[in-house]
């Protein structure tokens, strides 16, 4: 063994090792720069959203106010009953109705049960009030409670209690697809007067799709025209696209309310041109929502379309034409395939933003034009049905994330977004 033979590979190996170490250190250093933002986003973006989503399936109102009842409901053998339990459950319920009435926690349970079964609020509150006036425990809680309120003998009441007995529930998520569990634990459609959520989802989808298609129809010619112009001219015209883009949303919404109102500019022009006799209703309805949203989202279509169209060399179209393709065929079979990524990216981007829209429909639309986002805010602040707000949010978020994943596949990472 000569020293060179030993030292050669070893030297190479240690060089390789120190190179790898330097490379690893470089990676770590780079990652350390990204880390603060990752932590910031986790702490102030992901955590709040995760906390909200949790409310869509975690349901502990009843469990916390009536722990014994929740346990008894779970222990009871429902298969052998007619949907109404025996004394074992009533004996847990009675004292807890009284104690929760005194601790004032009964209102939360009553509200929660009322989400599921209308009339449950007064049923619970009346029973609790009357029971707390009794002197001493009755011989049979079941008899006593049923005497106060016969509603406790209905399977529906108990189906609601079982659904709310926690700690997890599918109630809110099922409700957002207009479904519920019946007394036999089967998933069934809710009664038609409560089945409103699929309509809301459907409406949201239709509005977003209409706006996307309109943006494509208006944005395509604009982007096409801009891409064919010399760069300095295109940049000047681009200002007309960027000005609305930089103008705050509220300003644009206010502008549309003003322009579209009964005596607004659009109606004046329509009447001047004798297109209509009287004023047309264009605001506080679906037409207004679609017009204003298309305006707000149009730049999001034009910018990616333009970015892709600029990269298409004109030679291909010329080649197609010189090889004898009629203009429309050349356009359809040579040009469109090349800008397809731009069309897809712009459309998905507009659709994603449109699906979550809140402000514009709230200000320009009527009651029948509100989208999912409106109801999420409404159930959070106005009716305080947080579980339902969270469940609707979960549906909207899932749709958004699926679309976003497709979008990033199409445009690829950070570079492609601008």
């Amino acid at each position, binding site marked *: 063994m000569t020293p060179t033979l030993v030292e050669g590979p070893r030297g190479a190996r240690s060089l390789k090792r120190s190179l790898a170490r330097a490379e690893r250190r470089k990676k770590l*250093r780079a990652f350390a720069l990204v880390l603060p933002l990752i932590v910031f986003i986790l702490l102030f973006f992901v955590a709040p959203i995760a906390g909200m989503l949790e409310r869509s399936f975690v349901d502990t109102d009843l469990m916390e106010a009536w722990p014994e009842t929740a346990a008894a409901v779970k222990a009871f053998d429902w298969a052998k009953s007619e949907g109404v339990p025996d004394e074992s459950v009533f004996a847990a319920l009675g004292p807890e109705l009284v104690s929760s009435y005194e601790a004032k926690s009964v209102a939360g349970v009553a509200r929660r049960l009322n989400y599921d079964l209308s009339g449950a609020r007064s049923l619970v509150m009346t029973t609790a009030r009357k029971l707390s006036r009794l002197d001493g425990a009755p011989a049979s809680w079941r008899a006593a409670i049923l005497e106060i309120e016969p509603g406790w003998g209905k399977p529906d009441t108990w189906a609601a209690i079982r659904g709310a007995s926690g700690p997890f529930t599918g109630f809110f998520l099922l409700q957002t697809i207009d479904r519920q569990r019946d007394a036999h634990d089967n998933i069934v459609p809710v009664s038609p007067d409560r089945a409103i959520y699929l309509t809301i989802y459907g409406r949201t989808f239709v509005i977003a799709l209409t706006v996307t298609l309109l943006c494509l129809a208006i944005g395509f010619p604009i982007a096409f025209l801009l891409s064919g112009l010399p760069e300095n001219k295109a940049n000047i015209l681009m200002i007309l696209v960027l000005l609305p883009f930089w103008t705050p949303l509220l300003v644009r919404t206010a502008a549309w309310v003003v322009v579209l109102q009964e005596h607004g500019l659009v109606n004046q022009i329509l009447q001047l041109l004798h297109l209509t006799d009287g004023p047309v209703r264009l605001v506080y309805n679906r037409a207004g929502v679609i017009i204003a949203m298309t305006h707000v989202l149009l730049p999001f279509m034009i910018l990616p379309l333009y970015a892709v169209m600029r990269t298409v060399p004109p030679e291909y179209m010329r080649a197609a034409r010189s090889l004898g393709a009629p203009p429309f065929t050349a356009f359809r079979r040579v040009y469109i395939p090349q800008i397809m990524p731009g069309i897809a990216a712009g459309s998905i981007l507009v659709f994603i933003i449109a699906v979550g829209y809140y402000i514009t429909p709230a200000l320009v639309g009527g009651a029948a034009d509100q989208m999912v986002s409106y109801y999420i805010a409404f159930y959070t602040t106005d009716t305080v049905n947080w579980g339902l707000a969270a469940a609707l949010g979960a549906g909207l978020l899932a749709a958004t994330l699926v679309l976003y994943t497709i979008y990033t596949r199409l445009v690829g*990472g950070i570079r492609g977004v601008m």
Partner: protein
Amino acid sequence: MSGAVTTTEKAWRVVLYVVSIAGFVFLVAPILAIVPLSFNGGQFLTYPLRGLSLRWYEDFFFSGTWMFSIRNSLIIGVAAAFLASFLGALAAIGLWLAEFPGKRFIGAFLLAPMIVPIVIYSVGLYFYFAPWNLTASFAGLILAHAVLGTPFVVITVSATLSGFDRTLIRAGLGLGASPIRVARSIVFPLIAPGVIFGGLFAFSVSLEEVITVLLIGGPNQRTLPREMFSGIRENISPTIAAAATIMIALAILLLVSAELLRRRSMRLQAKR
């Protein structure tokens, strides 16, 4: 035959121009239409104008509520933009410096605040901030708006960095400069336009954000868009048109500064 083809082509070009011009009018006209109405002497938001007057601007500047809302918007917007620029620029530099596992995913993850519907985020904050006493506070809104602004900073700084010549860093280090010196005298001046551009973007995001303010802002945090929201909803008056005109002027200012920054950074890149 070829004559017929060119005629149809000409016809298509005419159609293209007509449709595009209509599109441009659709984009700009409503925004411009509200401007003259803010100088209307009458009290309705309709044409023709009944004389010119600055009374609505007087109302805007001397009513107290609007100035209060501007103050709030500036506090929240500037603080959020600084926070977003700092965190976003660092992250963009990190993403650019080296390849590491999951980089693509991290990139997409950092852009998520731009994509997730703001209502969902705001409702999340509504619950999340309550135990920390951050609802109805400036700190809470600054944090929320900074989160919403960071993706724009990451994007603009990444775009600037993609045109950055890495050999400059090696040259600086090779000539004996410390990494900090290299960062300060080489990297920062070159990416500064991108960072400022991103900061302006983050500021404008904050300046137009109203859903977070509706859900987690208190009466002391009423911002300019929040005030406009109530105004449009309850009683749309010419003062709204005055407020809108001022915000349009601000938007033009931002647009011009952004364009100047873009030109500057393009010049810097062309020079190397």
